[in-house]
């Protein structure tokens, strides 16, 4: 297998030359492969792509998104999914094939202002994205702390095989729901844990492109690191605070142990 080559690029930079396939955010001009956005270029055996570091959310089919119901007609809800296109959730998706606008009250299901988790089932250049809530864990979000991060930071927040988000969830005893569109909902038992998780998420957003981020998040959250004893001192400015929160997390952990997880 070829070795993956990575480097920083800005629009117009030549990434490679030769018989390679241009994938995401790359165009071919003659025999050269040119980056079209700021990001990290990856040259693999299947082609060349650029993982962008900035930009707004553009919907893609099968994306899990979190959105806000902003309006409804007699046949569908209009959902703001933090993009330049507003999404539509057809009423038939919720009420079934025999939906009747006269009989079924749409506001009973989702009222204006509700936050929902949904999946994009159809989107192309000509039509607005279409949503579905017919899947496990989709539908209305009852409570939680809402955050908006850049959609380009979502993969970093999730981490390799979910490593980053698992670290945050475990350390703060919270559940973090991430939409591909950059909307994040944090729920947890203790407000301190939620606050701490929010801080960690903000830090990931700000420092997404830097190396050793997982380690620094672990330091922020006071998680002991498995590899050789890292310098464990938390950020100097937040030292007293983190000690306070640590104890509250411990308490929350105890509470959870009693009740048993899930």
């Amino acid at each position: 297998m070829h070795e993956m080559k990575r480097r920083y690029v800005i629009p117009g930079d030549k990434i490679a030359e030769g018989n390679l396939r241009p994938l995401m955010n790359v165009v071919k001009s003659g025999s050269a492969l040119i980056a079209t956005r700021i990001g990290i270029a990856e040259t693999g055996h299947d082609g060349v792509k650029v993982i962008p570091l900035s930009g707004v959310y553009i919907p893609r089919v099968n994306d899990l998104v979190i959105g806000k119901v902003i309006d409804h007609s007699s046949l569908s809800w209009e959902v703001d999914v933090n993009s330049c296109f507003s999404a539509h959730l057809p009423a038939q998706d919720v009420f079934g094939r025999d939906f009747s606008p006269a009989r079924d009250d749409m506001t009973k299901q989702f009222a204006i202002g509700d936050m929902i988790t949904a999946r994009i089932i159809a989107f192309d250049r000509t039509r607005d994205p279409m949503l579905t809530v017919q899947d496990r864990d989709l539908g209305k979000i009852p409570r939680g702390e809402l955050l908006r991060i850049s959609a380009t930071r979502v993969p970093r927040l999730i981490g390799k095989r979910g490593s980053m988000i698992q670290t945050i969830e475990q350390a703060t005893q919270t559940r973090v729901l991430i939409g591909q569109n950059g909307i994040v909902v944090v729920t947890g038992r203790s407000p301190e844990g939620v606050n701490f998780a929010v801080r960690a998420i903000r830090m990931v957003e700000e420092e997404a492109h830097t190396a050793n981020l997982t380690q620094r998040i672990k330091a922020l959250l006071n998680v002991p690191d498995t590899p050789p004893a890292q310098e464990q001192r938390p950020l100097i400015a937040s030292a007293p605070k983190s000690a306070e929160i640590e104890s509250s997390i411990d308490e929350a952990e105890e509470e959870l142990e009693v009740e048993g997880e899930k």
Partner: protein
Amino acid sequence: MTQTRKLIDENGIRTDGRGIDDLRTVKITVGPLKNADGSAFIEFGKNRILVAVYGPREVHPKHMALPDRCVLRCRYHMSPFSTDTRKNPAPSRREIEISKVMRESLEPALMLQDYPRAAIDVFVEVLQSDGGSRCAGISAAAVALADAGIGMHDLVASCAAGKVDDKVVLDINDEEDKEGQADMPVAYMPRLEQVTLLQLDGRIAPEQFGECLDKAIGGCKMVYEIQKQALMQKYFGNETELKEEVQ
């Protein structure tokens, strides 16, 4: 135009101390505005220009949307305090024209077909002007568009050249613009080697035209390096090589 005094002395030094092939000091800061999707601040000589980019976002009014590509909207505006006598803040004929040429000079670089039915708004606000503000504005707008993460074939760099005291000089300042013989703003995509803006104000001999254009393109290439450096600095700091993360 009648010239009142010499703009280039016998040693080839211009009124602000530059040689004929020297660019003014250019500094670009990426991302000064947090609310905008992309932004840039350029200091081009005494010019101070702030650029904000929003989008791709929904088009309002809706009928302006295009089914196959994105609409690019540019607004060039000079603040009332940007000149020594107060400038009326209402858009003037000149500002409307510059907004149009700016849009047309940026459009070829952008991949507008990637965002159909959407709009990209570029706001160029001149806080202090010193001649060549459209060039500085275009250069900063290209950086702000890249900062906004909009797909681009290349950055657009822009610089003027002109004729002063019968000599072709690079990067005309305010005084040379007013009292000189010709001013030629050029916007250029260095990788694609394509000119996206070419204007000429004043009179220039056909044999000097080529020289002037070449000089302006040379200036664009210098600006391009500064643009690239500014973007690299913002996103990657001083690192140029990527270090693999230890997971």
